[in-house]
């Protein structure tokens, strides 16, 4: 399988993501968000954390218009796996690939911590390798409060699109939502950072199975 990390100007978890993908055998490359290229050769696309375009205006609002996003949209439509972590999640909601919006934390201020997540959909493309219901994953964000209107929230729940929930609501998200997919289940956005939790030396490897799930999904579904 081949994966790619999209680097936006201001991305700062791009290398962390690259190393995690490399360590877990997802064979990553980088692509610049400023380039207008095809992503056809890749099986999974990762939008990393950071502060794309300074997060000026709103988080993800400007990144949404970067040239690469057309190819990201096309990949999502083709059913490829598209993953947005933190700022990547914000970009996916701003661009309409995922519903809702990420807003300023309920108590304003950046939160850097580790938080327990409950896995809501253990069979999803992103969680199937986990053997426990709860995982401890780092968080690092100031704008992580998931917001959507009541109808959208009801749809997310009904369609099984909520993948991760916080076990204690650290940022004020609606329904404790930490990560969701689109209706088709191939586009995922989440605020916590599994790529920071793959190496025991750093103190936590609960993120490993996130990437192993993606590998397993690819192994069973093959290339589109």
């Amino acid at each position, binding site marked *: 399988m081949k994966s790619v990390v999209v680097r936006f100007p201001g991305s700062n978890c791009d290398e962390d993501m690259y190393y995690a993908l490399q360590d877990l055998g997802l064979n990553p490359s980088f692509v610049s968000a400023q380039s207008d290229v095809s992503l056809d050769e890749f099986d999974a696309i990762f939008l990393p954390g950071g502060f794309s375009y300074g997060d000026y205006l709103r988080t993800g609002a400007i990144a949404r218009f970067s040239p690469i996003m057309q190819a990201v949209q096309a990949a999502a439509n083709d059913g490829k796996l598209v993953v947005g972590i933190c700022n990547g999640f914000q970009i996916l909601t701003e661009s309409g690939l995922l519903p*809702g919006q990420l*807003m300023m934390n309920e*108590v304003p201020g950046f939160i850097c911590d580790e938080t327990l997540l409950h896995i809501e959909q253990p069979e999803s493309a992103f969680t199937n390798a986990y053997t426990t219901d709860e995982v401890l994953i780092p968080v690092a964000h100031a704008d992580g*409060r998931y*917001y959507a209107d009541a109808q959208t929230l009801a749809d997310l729940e009904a369609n099984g699109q909520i993948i991760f929930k916080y076990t204690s609501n650290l940022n004020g998200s609606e329904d404790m939502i930490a990560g969701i997919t689109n209706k088709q289940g191939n586009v995922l956005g989440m605020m916590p950072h599994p790529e920071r939790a793959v190496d025991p030396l750093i103190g936590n490897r609960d993120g490993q199975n996130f990437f192993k799930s993606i590998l397993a999904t690819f192994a069973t579904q093959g290339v589109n």
Partner: protein
Amino acid sequence: MTMYLAKIKVTYKPSVLDPQGEVIKSALHRLDYETVNQVIQGKYFEVKLAADSIEAANGLVESMTEALLINQNTETYNYTVEEVEA
């Protein structure tokens, strides 16, 4: 084409939590401005643009605001447009 100045104010929709507004409100209460009842923090933009007419300018302002300046899930806006010297 004529030059116009648009002044655009963006705020959260009424039901959406504005954490900064809440923090500012409690800070004002701590500073003894006890009668403060509500604080809304928003964004303000000034955009200079050329257009054929004020109607055309209005149209451009609305479309650019909805395309980029606001997120329609949570934000709303109002604006004024006036003619200015180039």
